[in-house]
């Protein structure tokens, strides 16, 4: 594994800002201290595996209200409100873009990298637990095995979880 030594906190913050400002036209502010949405919330949970240049997984927890607001913006050309399928697809596309930016920033310029397909699930009663495990699919389970970053987007909390070997870029460690 030849990942560059970057500050992962900075990498994730930059990627989140670029994704949400670019696609959703909204600011994303990092939270030094944060927490997952409260139990019982309606959220989207989405994750994708990082296949190359190092194994890992990037996941997000996004409140349904925020996902709907972003989808409304993107689909504003349409006369009708976005369907549930469109909102789910929006979450997947946000994650795909975000993961690409994170892995692209962490990997050396010459490295080929590959991402898996986003897996997205709507959870009507979030249990407040953490996604974990590369290749585990969509699940709420603990304990936390990765590093979680929290952001405020349109008054809602976005959680980004990074797991696996790509974490070794964190704080410049091998």
């Amino acid at each position, binding site marked *: 594994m030849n990942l560059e030594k970057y500050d992962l906190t900075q990498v994730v913050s930059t990627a989140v800002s*670029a*994704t949400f400002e*670019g*696609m959703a036209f909204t600011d994303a502010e990092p939270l030094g201290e944060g927490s997952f949405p409260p139990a019982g919330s309606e959220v989207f949970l989405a994750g994708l595996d990082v296949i190359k240049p190092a194994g890992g997984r990037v996941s997000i927890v996004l409140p349904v209200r925020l996902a709907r607001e972003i*989808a409304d913006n*993107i*689909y*504003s*050309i*349409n006369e009708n409100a976005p369907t549930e*399928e*469109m909102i789910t*697809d*929006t979450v*997947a*596309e946000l994650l*795909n*873009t975000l*993961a*690409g*930016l994170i*892995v*692209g920033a962490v*990997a050396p*310029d*010459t*490295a*080929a*990298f*590959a*991402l898996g397909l986003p897996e997205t699930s709507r959870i009507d009663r979030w249990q407040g637990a953490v996604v974990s495990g590369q290749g585990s699919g969509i699940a709420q389970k603990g304990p936390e095995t990765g590093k979680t970053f929290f952001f405020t987007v349109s008054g809602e909390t976005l959680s980004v979880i990074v797991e696996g070997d790509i974490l070794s870029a964190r704080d410049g460690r091998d």
Partner: protein
Amino acid sequence: MKRIILADDSCTARMFIRQCLEIAGFTGAEFVEVADGKAALEAIRSGGADLVVTDLTMPVMDGTEFMKRKAASPRLTDTPVVVITSANNPAKEKELMELGALAVLKKPVTPAILAEVLGPVFTEEGQ
């Protein structure tokens, strides 16, 4: 009227790129949305295209295979193609450029980036 093919398996990505293109000045164009490279080839063959904007990772036929098929077909080689991807690297970009891509852009694209890339191609002939 310009005929623009948008190839991406995500309907959100297609809609977002369409928005960006309209803001970049491609208003009034006919947008044809398809979910993979095979459907993009069929759309070009059936109705022509002034521009193709394609994702790289798609089911059925991905963006690289689409570019290979397009490069191998004399009828299609002149159609400008912009590849937009979340999984880019220099080697892949070089391969796509050698296959005739006008540009390889990293997600998320912006109207300004698209205008910059497409401006020189479409300025002479107008919208």
